[in-house]
């Protein structure tokens, strides 16, 4: 099948999204970061981090901005290279 793999990947992502929507509708999950949960577990034992990050994104919005920027930088490079190869193949 020509697009078998694309269909399989799309199916995996749809199942993943479906599970999330179903669980979210049940509504007892917090969807916090796993690293935060680990930090809580460690701090519960009385440990205090010995050093703080020297800069933190001042709000959730700024943090999202920077994460989006990180993804965008990567996506531009991937798109550029694949487009370059595709075009090179056509003219060859």
């Amino acid at each position: 099948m020509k697009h078998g793999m694309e269909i399989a990947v799309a199916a995996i992502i749809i199942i993943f999204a479906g599970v999330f929507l179903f669980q979210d509708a049940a509504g007892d999950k917090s969807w916090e970061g796993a690293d935060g949960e680990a930090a809580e577990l460690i701090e519960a034992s009385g440990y205090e981090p010995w050093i703080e990050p020297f800069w933190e994104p001042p709000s959730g919005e700024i943090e999202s901005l920077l994460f989006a920027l990180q993804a965008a930088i990567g996506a531009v490079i991937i798109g550029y290279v694949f487009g370059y190869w595709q075009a090179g193949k056509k003219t060859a």
Partner: protein
Amino acid sequence: MHIMEGFLPSPWWEIWFLVSLPFIVFGVYQLNRLVKERREALPLLAVAGAFVFVLSSLKLPSFTGSCSHPTGTGLGAVLFGPCITGVLGVIVLIFQAVFLAHGGITTLGANVFSMGIAGPVVAWLVYKAGTRAGANTYATVFAAAALADLFTYVVTSIQLALAFPGTTGFLGAFTAFAAIFAITQVPLAIIEGAVIALVFKYIVHLKPEILIRLNLLPESTIQRLKEAAA
């Protein structure tokens, strides 16, 4: 999800820097050789690095009710080996530690080891074993990338359990940390494996000559893969 700033006490953060260092030094050496001798592979290197950028920025919800992100290192590991991928990991982890307060500078050594080295070593071994055994190429890439993702967080759990054995000892602490990190990671690892296998398919179709030159796939296999998709 990386170990946060300040969450590894001395001597653990120093130890992980020392453990990671030789891999990174060798990675820089390999990278230099690649840049000099295999210039045609540079766009592929850029794609591998960009993949780590994209995938490690996506925090996804998992069935455990918490969020974590894939690593994206499987592609680089399969294509260029674990040491070069370690260097790519250093770049991404510094970006995240400095601009996002995600991970940390003092925990960089530990995070580089889990995400940039340990995971990629698994991916690289799985890929080599799979191709040698003649397994389906895309299934091999899927398994390599998914297991690399999962193993990254198993190592994170080991690192935290070593530093914080608490009252339950190493095994008890490992179980607790693995419940947070590794279990959450299972569905994300499957997605990561699937996406990277798909990208590998596009590389096979667009630039098979690079895969042959990097000794990743024999020409006969590439021919077969192309015919299967035609």
